[in-house]
């Protein structure tokens, strides 16, 4: 018998409950849709003239049938038909196990989120996306490897986080799009028209009390239902494989893959904190103060969301679900095979440079020992000079160049000092994706690599 069956009677039973909840959810939504959405246009093929709620009613009945099938199919799980087909799993694995596609996809998603915000904030669209993701998850849970990762008690908060973050982002964009339209049409803001101000006592305190009780109940239930993931006693010679940081630090751990510890563990987090502290100094735009708006502060919000979604949330997801043994990439339906062979042979920039045909002909390869002017130090510096010049140019030349060209508008608005602070922080933020892409695309290890001095960039 297969020790890792995709489906067991317990799993089927659980999925039965899962689909039953989805059924109730969609039943309510169908009622709402019947009241609110009206009918399809007469010209629509097939559905013309029928209430929009028909579609939801069909989905609801499918979910009820799915639930019933799962509840009754528990007796022989091996023969159960409703599971993800391999032709679906394999391409998805190939996608998720490829960091370049994954990262490019998360950046693309970020771009689409902003570009198509007016479309996806609509209730029906957002609800459809939620249902699709829930059904996708339900189907995926029928896979053994997916369940091992997603169902791990450690990772439950991350799954919850994905839905909570999506929900809060949706609320923001919905309100912001609404207000942007109001401003464009000259109508009063939502916050002015629907004054949501309440008294602290009793209204706010009352809500807070309820939240407190509910949260406590959830935590107690959580603590009872999901076992704390205790591991074997710590040993200095035995590191768990894979060895993962707490989930909220997985973004940092991912940075450590691309940078030296002093950079990824000290400098970059320090710059994140310093940059956040500097936000009130850099961003003196008073638009959007006290109300939701995207257009009035599009640059600030886009920049922040870029740092938050592709560079933080996406890295947490990557670290949680896609990093497996030996810190290799694994697809979400892929077995965590300790012996998966991944070519990760990394090369420093200096080796690329000096071993290139031109310089290897001119100089004869990597400068070694004290071959340059008889000094080991100068030889080191000569060896790493391409990287050092690149780094210096990146931080010293790019800000003025950007200020005079692409970001001229901001340079004029901000003044030189503020602009330099801003552009340096922005360049530091760009350092991470640049280095990641260089690593993935060219197997570049370090731009400046001086292990002799413990100095690598």
């Amino acid at each position, binding site marked *: 018998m297969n020790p890792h069956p995709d489906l067991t009677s317990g799993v089927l039973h659980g999925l039965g409950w899962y689909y039953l909840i989805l059924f109730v959810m969609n039943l309510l939504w169908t009622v709402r849709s019947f009241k609110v959405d009206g009918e399809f246009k007469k010209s629509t093929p097939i559905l013309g003239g029928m209430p929009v709620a028909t579609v939801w009613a069909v989905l609801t009945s499918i979910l009820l049938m799915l639930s019933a099938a799962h509840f009754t199919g528990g007796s022989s799980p091996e023969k159960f038909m409703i599971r993800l087909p391999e032709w679906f799993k394999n391409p998805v694995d190939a996608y998720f196990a490829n960091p370049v596609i994954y990262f490019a996809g998360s950046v693309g998603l970020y771009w689409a989120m902003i570009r198509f915000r007016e479309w996806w904030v609509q209730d029906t669209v957002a609800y459809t996306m939620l249902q699709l993701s829930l059904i996708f998850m339900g189907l995926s849970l029928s896979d053994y490897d997916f369940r091992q990762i997603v169902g791990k008690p450690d990772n439950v908060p991350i799954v919850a986080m994905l839905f909570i973050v999506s929900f809060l982002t949706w609320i923001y964009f919905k309100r912001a799009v609404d207000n942007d339209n109001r401003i464009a049409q000259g109508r009063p803001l939502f916050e002015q028209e629907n004054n949501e101000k309440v008294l602290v006592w009793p209204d706010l305190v009352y809500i807070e009390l309820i939240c407190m009780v509910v949260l406590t109940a959830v935590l107690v239930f959580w603590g009872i239902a999901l076992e704390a993931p205790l591991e074997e006693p710590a040993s200095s010679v035995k590191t768990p494989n894979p060895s993962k940081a707490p989930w909220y630090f997985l973004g940092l751990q991912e940075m450590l*893959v691309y940078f*030296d510890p002093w950079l990824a563990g000290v400098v970059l987090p320090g710059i994140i904190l310093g940059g956040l502290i500097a936000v009130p100094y850099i961003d003196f735009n008073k638009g959007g103060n006290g109300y939701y708006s995207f257009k009035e502060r599009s640059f600030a919000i886009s920049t922040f969301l870029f740092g938050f979604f592709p560079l933080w949330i996406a890295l947490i997801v990557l670290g949680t679900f896609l990093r497996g043994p030996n810190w290799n990439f694994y697809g979400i339906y892929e077995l965590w095979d300790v012996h998966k062979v991944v070519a990760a042979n990394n090369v420093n920039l200096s080796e690329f440079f000096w071993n290139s045909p031109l310089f290897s002909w001119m100089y004869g390869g990597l400068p070694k020992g004290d071959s340059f002017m008889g000094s080991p130090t100068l030889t080191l510096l000569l060896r790493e000079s391409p990287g050092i010049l690149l780094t210096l140019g990146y931080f010293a030349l790019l800000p003025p160049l950007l200020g005079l060209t692409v970001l001229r508008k901001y340079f004029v608005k901000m003044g030189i000092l503020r602009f330099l602070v801003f552009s340096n922080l922005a360049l530091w933020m760009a350092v991470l994706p640049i280095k990641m892409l260089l690593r993935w695309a060219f197997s570049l290890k370090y731009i400046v690599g001086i292990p002799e001095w413990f100095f690598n960039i």
Partner: protein
Amino acid sequence: MSDQKPSSDDILSKIRGAAKPAGDKPAAAEESSAAAAPKGTSDILASIKGGAAKPKAAAPAGTADIMASIKGGAAAKPAAPAGTAGILDSIKGGGAAKPAGTASILDSIKGGGAAKPAAASVAPKAAAKAAVDPSKASGMSAADMIKAARTSVGGSVEATAAPKKVALPSKPLVQPAAAAKAADTRRSFLSDALTAVCSPLFVAWGSLITATAASSLAMARFMMPNVLVEPPTKFKIGPPTDYGASTVSTKWKAQFGVWIVNDEIDGQQMIYALSTVCTHLGCTPNWLEGEQKFKCPCHGSGFYKSGVNFEGPAPRPLERHGIRLAEDGTLEVDKSVKFQKELGQWDNAACFVPV
């Protein structure tokens, strides 16, 4: 100050200057009276009244003291006695020996302003005694005070012709009181000391300091444990024949944190001891026999059998420890020394044993 008849402003400034320190020690009263600048009649009167009405604000004194200091201060200016002798002289000269009551003080103010301060300050207690009768003191209206002051200021105009010379007899003024107090302290030293030791402040600070000192000592002791359960830095790992050609032994990883590798490097078959600490962030990599590499589970650094890094973020090769063939024919590893390839230390004969 001028030769003219003092204006009411001048007078009030005098009073004000004197009245202000009523909340202070009498000695200070005289000091500030010289520097005081008039603000306004109402201010001054208010301060007089305030000073008189709030005797509790006064440090040592009651209404009587305040009155005394006002009176004393008002006339104090001209006096410039340098020491006790001077004070006594001025007393003699002024003829205002021992003021016995408000009346006599007022008299002395009126009569010889120069002598007054000495009288008032040499024995402030006496002055206080003299003015002890509160009904008398508080019965004196502001108008009376101004009147008295006017007289004394008028009388002292000549004496204050050179205001800059007006030195302030602060030290001598304090001395008598201090001497009296010293006598007190000598007598009650033991009981005073006992009170101080038992005060909450002393107890609190004392216990804090004691506790801190004790815990520091305990911490210092902790640094020198009786038994040290660290593995020895030098240990025998058996004869070289235990380690077959082209193998990596993980036998000593758990106990000592070294891999013993028998490998061919630059055409030379040798045994060396690699440290099991990843050069990226210090995790412990695993030896993967199938892939013939060391692989770190934390950030994916990979090392060849030789210890040289080739994948992942590790910036430099694994470190070698010292190894030698001991006299008894077994290998001995010395973990107290390390050899780094990037510093060219792997050429050192102390970090490998040719086989």
